[in-house]
């Protein structure tokens, strides 16, 4: 059987499981409601003195913070649940390579996140109606949000391979995502500059998802920025396969 077919079969089942467990609905609703509420209430969207009609400082300010909690919630049961119920034994004795199951599951989680992101699209329509937003930044903002969500999900995916406890997976994943966000926050950066010097501190903050997220959000869609997210996701999925393999032996 071909790899894309196997990935598709796993993807379908996992996506159905996400919606069956109501988790996907909860995720989508919370993401959209919070993103809108934060945009309108906390950033004074309608404030006449606002910088411009751009969404950069209003709407696209929040997804990184929301996805840090919500992406782990989507991904927490991907492998933990398989280990807890023992179904991993069924899955891995099927005639397919384990990586196909890993990719299929990851893509199913990513589909839920993508649907949630798409559901926030009315804000763009609103802004287009009210003013003339920079479309490049809107596309950049959405691309950044998508990649950031995918990275948080990939981190969660590898954590879920470690533990059979869904709650432990959620807490650990949120912590890791939070730490990776923190690396680029000025006080943390200053701390590293003080003890490690400028170059090392720059290297550390370049590992932060937040700085790459901000770059892409601003429309700086460069190869290093895309490569950062792609390699982070690739590494996490590879780590997942290693963990699953070593867990069995």
């Amino acid at each position, binding site marked *: 059987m071909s790899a894309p077919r*196997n990935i598709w079969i796993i993807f379908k089942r996992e996506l159905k499981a996400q919606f069956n467990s109501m988790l996907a609905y909860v995720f989508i609703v919370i993401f959209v409601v919070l993103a809108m509420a934060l945009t309108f209430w906390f950033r004074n969207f309608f404030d006449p003195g606002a910088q411009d009609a751009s969404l950069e400082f209003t709407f696209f300010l929040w997804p990184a913070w929301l996805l840090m909690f919500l992406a782990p919630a989507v991904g927490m049961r991907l492998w933990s649940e398989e280990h807890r*119920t023992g*179904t991993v*034994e*069924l899955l891995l*004795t*099927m005639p397919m390579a384990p990586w196909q199951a890993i990719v299929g599951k990851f893509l199913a989680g990513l589909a839920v996140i993508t649907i949630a992101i798409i559901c926030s699209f009315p804000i763009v329509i609103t802004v287009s109606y009210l003013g003339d937003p920079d479309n490049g930044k809107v596309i950049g903002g959405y691309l950044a949000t998508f990649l950031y969500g995918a990275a948080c999900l990939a981190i969660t995916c590898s954590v879920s391979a470690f533990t059979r406890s869904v709650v432990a997976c959620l807490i650990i994943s949120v912590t890791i995502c939070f730490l990776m966000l923190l690396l680029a926050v000025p006080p943390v950066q200053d701390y590293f500059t003080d003890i490690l010097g400028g170059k090392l501190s720059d290297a550390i903050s370049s590992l932060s998802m937040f700085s790459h997220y901000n770059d892409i959000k601003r429309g700086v869609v460069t190869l290093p920025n895309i490569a950062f997210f792609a390699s982070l996701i690739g590494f996490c999925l590879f780590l997942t396969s290693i963990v699953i393999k070593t867990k069995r032996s």
Partner: protein
Amino acid sequence: MIEVEHLTKRFGHNTAVDNISFTVKKGEVLGFLGPNGAGKSTTMRMITGYIPPTDGKISVDGADVVNAPIVAKAKIGYLPEAAPLYADMTVVAFLRFMAELRGKGEEDVERALDTCFLDPVRNQNIDTLSKGYRHRTCLAQSILHDPDILILDEPTDGLDPNQKQEVRSLIKRMGEGKVIIFSTHILEEVEAACTRAIIIDQGRVVADGTPDELKARSRGAGAVAVRITGMAGSGIRSELAGLSGAADVLGDDKGENGFIGKVLPAKSGDSLSKEIFELCKQKQLVLEELHVEPGRLDDVFREITVADTSLSE
């Protein structure tokens, strides 16, 4: 069909399976026996490709499980211990999912539902099923692709006596054209369904043969149970003990009413029953009952595994 050569599995310093070798041919139903923690499940998991072996080779119908796992896995149907399932799915959706992964279609799902008597619950959610139905659902996924090789880890565990009987007859029926390996604690099951049995203890094969061959190895095998009257019990006992083929005489003296008990043979295959018959004829005793015991599998099981455990201690 299945060739296992020098299979070893170590978890850290703990050796779960220690240099096991055996072959299973088409048409054989192999019972895997052994105390808890003997290495039965680990061996089965290695054959199915779930756990990689530390050492040794497993070949399934010519396909090496380590080097060609996908080819080997396609030939095997596997029922893991505790029959894990996706609880959020309905029975039929679960079977469709597993069938798709095996490249099989709707007719295979229907056949599996039919074989495992799952039709009444086909649209029921798995988390609402009774244990028996859950077990059968997991068994159904293992036969979706009509595999040549079936590995069943405790297929009757937790079932009620009727369900056990159903699963046993299912195993026996399917066993004719396939290779089936199943593990169990229940020794009658081996006698009821297996053509061959392997006893594993502490990761090693300690006995391998047909159920009859294994039974013949028990201490009680070949013992002659008798009921004799016509003389005082103690007298009959001493006469029986004096027979050249008798190793020991166990049983109750019934005073003047004779003797009921067992005569253990000195060597297996001796014509002890004939000797007893001749004795009765000669002494004019009444031989009311006589039968040769075939030996019991649980005796062999206990003797082999207990002896082994005490040795290692």
